[in-house]
């Protein structure tokens, strides 16, 4: 059928095909080049960064920039903090979302409908930045890592998609567990969650990327430099060009330009490494939750 579509091909059509290939390859390159440039720059010497404005492969390979950041206590602290907050946060957010999605997936639960509409309402309207900040403040969560996790613990979109997934699971499995005398908690743990591993993995990735990339929450809720996450650290180094945060040995001259490149790479690396999984699942996840074409 696909072949049929192109049977009546005109010269103009073929010219367009060539043009289309060139254009899309160009678009793909534009998407990728900044990253390759930064990767190359992170392995270049300061001298090369000062003399060559653009390159995709360093002339002299150097690890100076990475050495500088990985010997910086502030950077290592930010990196470890970010990894820990992302790991704990993803787990907490996923658990909260799944435990709430399960009862809501039971169509006969009295009050479930009301709760669902109240959740949908929060997707259209919210209290805003300052009232949320005041809640976090009143709960005593300022300068506390839980402030990076709890205020965004349940994403209503994710919740509803997971709920819908639970609803599609074959009811027989849960019923047989019920006959065996399991209560809903046991059913959720031993039947429903294992069956939902792929979906839960998808949303774990959603949440993990969200926490890893989050800049607004640490900006709002952490005002102690020593608590900074990687994104805060990155901003200070590149946007504010404040290299003092690297806390280098003052007798040594840090590779000022290289550090910026290297920090960007470290902040991006996990995303790039997980990208193959992300792409597969995210595209699917986005389509589940999107409009019917």
């Amino acid at each position, binding site marked *: 059928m696909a072949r049929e*579509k192109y049977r009546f091909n005109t010269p*103009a059509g073929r010219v367009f095909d060539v043009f289309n290939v060139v254009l899309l390859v160009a678009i793909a390159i534009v998407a990728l080049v*900044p990253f390759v440039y930064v990767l190359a720059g992170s392995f270049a010497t300061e001298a090369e960064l000062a003399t060559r*404005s653009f390159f995709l492969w360093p002339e002299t390979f150097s690890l100076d920039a990475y050495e500088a950041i990985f010997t910086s206590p502030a950077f290592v602290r930010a990196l470890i903090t970010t990894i820990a907050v992302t790991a704990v946060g993803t787990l907490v957010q996923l658990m909260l979302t799944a435990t709430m999605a399960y009862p809501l997936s039971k169509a006969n639960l009295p009050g479930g409908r009301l709760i669902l509409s109240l959740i949908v309402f929060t997707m259209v309207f919210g209290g*805003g930045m*300052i009232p*949320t900040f005041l809640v976090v403040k009143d709960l005593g969560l300022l300068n506390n890592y839980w402030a990076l996790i709890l205020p965004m613990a349940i994403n209503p979109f994710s919740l509803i998609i997971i709920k819908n997934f639970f609803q599609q699971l074959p009811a027989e499995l849960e019923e047989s567990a019920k006959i065996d005398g399991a209560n809903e908690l046991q059913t*959720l743990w031993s039947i429903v969650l294992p069956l939902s591993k792929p979906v839960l993995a998808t949303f774990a990735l959603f949440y993990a990327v969200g926490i890893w990339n989050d800049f607004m929450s640490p900006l709002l809720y952490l005002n102690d430099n020593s608590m900074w996450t990687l994104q805060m650290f990155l901003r200070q180094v*590149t946007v504010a060009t404040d290299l003092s945060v690297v806390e280098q040995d003052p007798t040594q001259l840090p590779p000022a330009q290289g550090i910026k490149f290297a920090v960007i790479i470290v902040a991006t690396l996990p995303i790039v490494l997980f990208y193959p999984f992300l792409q597969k699942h995210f595209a699917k996840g986005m389509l589940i939750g999107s*409009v019917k074409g």
Partner: protein
Amino acid sequence: MAMLDTAVTATETLTVQKQSRRRRGVRVHFTQFKWLYLLLVPGIVYFLLFRYWPMYGAIIAFKDYVPFLGIADSPWVGLAHFEDFFASPDFPRLLANTIILALLSLLIAFPLTIIVALLLNEMRVTILKRTTQTLIYVPHFLSWTVVASLTYLLFALDIGPLFQLVNGILGTDINFLADPAWFRPIIVLQDIWKNTGWGTIIFLAALAGVDQAQYEAAIIDGAGRFQRVWHITIPSIMPTIIVMLVLQMGQILNTGFEQIYLMTNSLNRSVADVFDTYVYFMGITQGSYSYSTAVGLFKAVVGVVLIFGANWIAKRFNQAGIF
């Protein structure tokens, strides 16, 4: 947003089952569903604490919030903060900055997304199509901090590759990161770079659903490639385009906080300040909690009105709305 639909369908099925149950007592309900209710507790606590308490807290927009008095006991001031805001010279500036950025995105980034999706759809070499897709989705997953950092490196004064390239072409010596005239182009550029690829997913899904028989019929009628795209492909994905447009309209005042904040500096404030960053600067930096809450509330209410308004317009055009 179809989530709204899904939610509605789910709740419809629910009513039927609910009626037969209504005769039994509340106590029966509770014992029968106690485990399910128990599972709901953490989630409900979350929504009450972090979603509904802030909505209650938003009433400080009508009060003079004094931290040690708390939300309830702070004195009412009516609409004073709103009046201050609308009368201040900041208001027209913020409104203009916000709307210009939204319109630029709507007029440039939005059509570009559709065009890239159409180009991808016309691509016949599957492997090339897949590879392009894989590559253009990547920037979506990078944080705004990384995007801002890349921008700062690429446009760095004197040494940035794009600083040299663009200034070389134009024969100028523009400092893109500080020049207010270049703030908007850079924001739009970032937006395009980060989100165009990702945005195509939804249109590609719609394109995959177009009835192939129509193309065959058109070919027999002698329609050329461009004619097929114009008369079949685009009308077929029109509902999707309208829905996405509606969603964008509802987001007009929601310029991404992180993106704008990261690109704002003392030199470009006149064009950079938008509602979101203004709320931050007034509220968090200067501590005017009530005033900034009023600004945020104004923005949120306008957002709700816009999304319902755009949906109403979409329906009048006889297209599927989102609600």
